[in-house]
């Protein structure tokens, strides 16, 4: 195959989504955020909903999501993204409204807004990045930090009597009558990336079907916060995060 064959449109095997712009990413090497951003961009492009999509960015590493995806965004106060999304969707019911939140944002400071938005069955998609740590502020303990897992505020490992249990909020949200689709995915292999994309797309589609709230948890790595190489992070995630946060659908109605 020569160069002219390679650049022949008929032989195109991969194309970067036009919904993602060329802004250099601030995410660390090996971080899951970039992959999930790309998936959202691809879905928005393939569903042709760029003019109908409004994203709600969190506080945390994902705060700059608005720098990378060329859609309208609102940046929320810490934890309040589901409240913003509620209002946007109620006032603009024909738009695709999604939140993009980390574990600290969604499962600690924003627990009330998360649970009540889901319990009302708001027709929104919640993309939940769970890496078990506060990435943006430098690796502090999160509600989802595993038992014994080290962080800058649990230097000897999470201690259950002191810090309580890891909060499996997605399992909790699946119990609520307002949720229609609750799933746990990851993006550490080609196969899981494809599955995660289908899950996110389904969550986006659900938001127009008046079925209730969809939550896609992406169990993710934070190689900087975990102080591991990206490859080691993936292995560590599979060995340690997956037993606590098992992959698959928790609810799909």
């Amino acid at each position, binding site marked *: 195959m020569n160069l002219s064959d390679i650049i022949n449109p008929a032989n195109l095997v991969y194309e970067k989504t036009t919904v993602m712009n060329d802004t250099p990413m601030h995410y660390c090497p090996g971080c899951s955020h970039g992959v999930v951003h790309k998936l959202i961009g691809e879905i928005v492009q393939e569903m042709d909903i760029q003019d109908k999509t409004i994203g709600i960015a969190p506080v945390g590493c994902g705060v700059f999501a608005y720098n990378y995806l060329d859609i309208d*965004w609102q940046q929320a106060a810490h934890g309040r993204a589901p409240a913003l*999304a509620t209002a946007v969707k109620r006032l603009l019911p024909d738009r695709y409204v999604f939140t993009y939140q980390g574990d600290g944002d969604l499962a600690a400071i924003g627990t009330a807004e998360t649970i009540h938005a889901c319990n009302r069955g708001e027709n929104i998609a919640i993309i939940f990045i769970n890496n078990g740590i506060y990435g943006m502020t430098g690796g502090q303990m999160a509600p989802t930090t595993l038992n014994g897992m080290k962080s800058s505020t649990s230097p000897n490992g999470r201690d259950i009597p002191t810090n309580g249990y890891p909060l499996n909020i997605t399992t909790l949200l699946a119990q609520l009558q307002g949720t229609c689709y609750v799933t746990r995915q990851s993006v550490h292999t080609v196969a899981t990336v494809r599955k995660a994309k289908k899950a996110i797309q389904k969550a986006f589609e659900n938001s127009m079907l008046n079925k209730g709230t969809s939550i896609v948890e992406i169990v993710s790595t934070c190689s900087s916060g975990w102080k591991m190489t990206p490859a080691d992070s993936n292995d560590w995630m599979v060995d340690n995060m997956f037993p606590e946060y098992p992959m698959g659908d928790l609810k799909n109605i």
Partner: protein
Amino acid sequence: MKGNEAVAHAAIRCGCDGYFGYPITPQSEILETLTELEPWKTTGMVVMQVESETASINMVYGAAGCGKRAMTSSSSPGISLMQEGISYLAGAELPCVIVNVMRGGPGLGTIQPSQADYFQTVKGGGHGDYKMITLAPASVQEMADHTVLAFDLAFKYRTPAMVLADGIIGQMMEKVVLPPFVPRRTDEEIIAECPWATLGKPADRKPNVINSLRLEAADMEKLNLALQSRYREIEKEEVRFEEFNCDDADYIIVAFGITARICQKTVELARAEGIKAGLLRPITLFPFPVNQLKEYAKRTKGMLTVEMSAGQMVEDVRLAVNGKVPVEYYGRMGGIVPAPDEVLHALKDKLINSTVEE
């Protein structure tokens, strides 16, 4: 009708798109009236009772970010809980209306009326340098009128606006002429008025981002300077006040809201005794009627602020007067409402008799 009910009626009539609230005495009639009137069946206005004041103010943020006319209401403890959101709204330059029907504090306090949230409102209760347009209604009529005016000013300046009432104004019943019906704006009208609104990005424009984050110090200072210049413009253009018997007054009482109504009677009592008293009622607390007070400082013997607080607005009157004449304070706290003769006594005691002694 009640002042609180007037707010609800006025909101529907002025094309409000969304109300998000949480019950708290003495303002729950706003949410109750809205749910009884069911405007979602007529104008399409969204009305939601949500899980907390934190959620309500952030829903206001989300709605306002779409260029919608959004509002919430609460009373003092609930407004305290909203301060984070108000700071974000100011930082993201979002127009919205917040109604505070004040009750006595601090803490859970009392459900009786108060004006002790003056500092919180006009000095910026949340973090950072921001101001909020503040209207102080003194009647049920003004509860309706100020709800409409607050929306107009908020959108004119892209800033949150507060209607700062108290438990009496919220609860008392008076005749009111409701504002005319204005339809809610269409998406096209919102795009024309609010090109920054997040309604979905068409192919021919860049993404709109509602945001108060500026990581670079220089960018953050630029936003601050822009906000401050807008506040200076508001101070220049939007001062509103009402005067009663001020023309020939030796003594000016300064009071807002229900306290101004009480002090009007005090002025009548004083005049009957030959004391030349007048009343200046600030209608806007931010912007404050600084220049008018400066003028009166040149030709009066003293001023008395009357407040249902420990004396908060008195500081702004003193700043305006800048030592030209004595400025004293009289007030009650914790839900006690001062009586007209009580105020007259304070006027004599603090200004007239002490001036004679000097």
